[in-house]
């Protein structure tokens, strides 16, 4: 297990180093997230829909789509010149490859959130106050679920000619429970309800994470071995 995690971290570090050098996916995802926030802000009449009603849905829709940009890149870097063959021919387990990719994607998605959530708070003038900690917990739970499912489908889509189209088509239906759970939990917090009222949605996110982290890790080897 320790060997698997060490190998996974090695792969994650490599992916993050590549992203740090190129910054292509991160800049795209952040720009997309900020543009999304602006577009949604001006699409609604603030006298008809309050910002606390609007913000949760906006945040998690924008977060989901901007995350897809990073997830597509995840196995895209392995496709160029068949680098994935070098990875799979090495003695690290397939599970370590998946976990490494997922770790890098999680850091990527969290980094996008670190820009998008403060931007949302500032732009929509949200009363963050003492809900910051639970909001971070929701964001983290949502990110883990999104990354687990998205990394698996990124691996599957990378080997196809229509990967860029296939990834959203495969992943978005699975993202629905995350978007719904995170939006509902965030809405409870922003409307000033006690955190226990968001408990059911948090449990849904937690259950989704547990099921899909395990399922995706165990499924990944079958996507690369035929």
């Amino acid at each position: 297990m320790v060997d698997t995690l060490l190998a996974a971290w090695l792969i994650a570090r490599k992916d993050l180093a590549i992203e740090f050098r190129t910054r292509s996916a991160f800049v795209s995802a952040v720009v997309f997230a900020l543009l999304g926030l602006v577009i949604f802000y001006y699409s609604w009449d603030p006298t008809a829909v309050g910002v606390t009603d609007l913000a949760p849905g906006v945040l998690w829709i924008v977060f989901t789509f901007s995350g897809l940009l990073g997830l597509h890149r995840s196995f895209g870097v392995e496709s160029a010149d068949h680098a994935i063959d070098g990875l799979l021919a090495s003695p690290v387990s397939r599970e370590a490859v998946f976990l490494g990719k997922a770790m890098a994607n999680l850091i990527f998605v969290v980094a996008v959130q670190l820009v998008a959530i403060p931007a949302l708070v500032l732009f929509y003038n949200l009363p963050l106050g003492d809900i910051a900690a639970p909001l971070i917990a929701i964001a983290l739970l949502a990110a883990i679920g999104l990354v687990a499912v998205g990394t698996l489908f990124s691996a599957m889509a990378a080997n196809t000619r229509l990967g860029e189209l296939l990834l959203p088509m495969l992943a978005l239906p699975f993202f629905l429970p995350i978007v719904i759970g995170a939006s509902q939990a965030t809405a409870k917090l922003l409307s000033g309800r006690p955190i226990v009222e968001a408990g059911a949605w948090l449990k849904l996110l937690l259950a989704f994470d547990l099921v899909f982290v395990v399922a995706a890790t165990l499924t990944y080897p079958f996507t690369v071995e035929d």
Partner: protein
Amino acid sequence: MSSTISSGGPPIVEATDLVRAFGSRTAVAGVSFSILPGDCLAVFGPNGAGKTTLLRVLAGLLKPTSGSARVAGIPLPGGAQARSRVGLISHHTMLYDALSARENVSFAARLYGVRDPRTRVDESLQRMLMLERADAPVRLLSRGMQQRVSIARAMVHQPQVVLADEPYSGLDDSGARSLTALLGELQSSGTAVIIVTHNLAEGLSLATHAAVMQRGKFVRYETRDGIDPTSYVATYREAVASSG
């Protein structure tokens, strides 16, 4: 022909009636061979003959459909143990172009759990005459230099078996000579080499075993004493012509 003497002992790579099919298409159709440490099997054949698929099965990237294969006595697919003994060179460089040559080779060294990776990485790059450009991003290197880095990456963990799929692809004369010398050195130190190439001269100069592959089968397979370069060229040309 190589003058390398096999070290004897049990086969380091062994295939028996090895078959690999993709749906209804059989890429490798019952291949059998056996090589010892220090041997070099050169496989020639037209495009689509199944040579690359054979190497991918031996590298642990594909599972055999039927038959059996062993690397260092480990039945394939043998998981991490078998893969750790193999170094794979391909006409694809398998490198990350945003990373430097040194970072690419170092990443491979760490994946393989190489002890003292820094020293080994430098040695490996030096051997392929790439130490001076070690810190250059791979995307800025020429195709031939990238191939040298790719070879350094495949050798960094000192594999017992080297699988080389068109390794001369993109190499200039100097690079090709370095590679032939390196493969010769590896053989001398007991590493088995299986090389797939269209370059008959280089392939046969290393070979202790040679095969011509056509439609998934070895249509000709000989060991050291039976390899006649002239007739191999003729068989190879016939195979290429008949494949069309």
